[in-house]
């Protein structure tokens, strides 16, 4: 347990925030594809961190611990959103034929990207969204957030080999999804 850190919880919290908030926010954005949701989840992550600082065990790195909370919060958020979508389907907020949300609040065009890259990025993010949760998490952390295989393994609490395998399968699946998308729309960039 962090005894010294308990003495000045607020200062420690501020340090953790300054060091990790950008990455947490970017992970949340990559996972949720929505700025408002990403900000909301980032807030929840750090509130959680603030309350749990005293329980933090130094066996893990702070960054791993914070990122693990972020990933778990994102997954919880996705689950909650799916539940809401099911409910909204009943209340006719979705197109009854396609099942798609009529008023989709997604704004997954990455604000930091230039115009020509926007479309490719949007398509990639949509494709990532179709991956299995574990593949999606591994892909976002290693390919988008550029975390090392070791870090991703620690965050996801799996072996490095498992991360490698998840990434490999994610890429394969993405190729299939994108190939189908290409065939369907005959996109020529």
């Amino acid at each position, binding site marked *: 347990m962090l005894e010294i850190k308990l003495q000045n919880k607020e200062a420690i919290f501020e340090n953790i925030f300054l060091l990790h908030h950008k990455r947490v926010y970017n992970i949340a954005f990559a996972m949720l594809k929505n700025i408002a949701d990403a900000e909301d989840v980032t*807030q929840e992550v750090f*509130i959680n961190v603030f309350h749990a600082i005293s329980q933090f065990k130094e066996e893990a790195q702070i960054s791993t611990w914070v990122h693990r909370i972020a990933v778990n919060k994102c997954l919880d958020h996705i689950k909650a959103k799916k539940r809401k979508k099911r409910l909204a389907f009943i209340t006719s907020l979705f197109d009854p034929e396609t099942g798609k949300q009529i008023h989709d609040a997604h704004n997954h065009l990455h604000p930091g990207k230039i115009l020509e890259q926007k479309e490719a990025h949007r398509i990639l993010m949509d494709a990532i969204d179709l991956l299995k949760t574990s593949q999606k998490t591994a892909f976002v952390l290693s390919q988008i957030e550029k975390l090392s295989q070791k870090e991703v393994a620690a965050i996801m609490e799996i072996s490095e080999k498992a991360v490698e395998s998840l990434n490999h399968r994610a890429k394969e699946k993405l190729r299939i999804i994108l190939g189908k998308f290409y065939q369907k729309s005959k996109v*020529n960039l």
Partner: protein
Amino acid sequence: MNMKNEEQWVNQVLASADQIDQLTPNPFLYQKIKHRIVQQERASSNNKNTLKWSVAFIVLLGLNTAVLFASAKKDRTRHQLKTNIELNNQTVYSY
């Protein structure tokens, strides 16, 4: 040719993951978080106070009930003792 185009396009889309700039969060994010923490702590302290008052009320109510029962029992015992004495006296007088 079409296959090549498709592969090229898929690679291009996959490579777009490497060109993503890091987003900068809202500059007031820290203040927002602190505000939520303060709000949560206030709510939790209010809940604790409500709980404390509830417990105090229940304890007080319990004590009152116990005292009432005890005094009622005492009255009954005293009444019974008085009746017994009167009965005894009557027995003594009847002799």
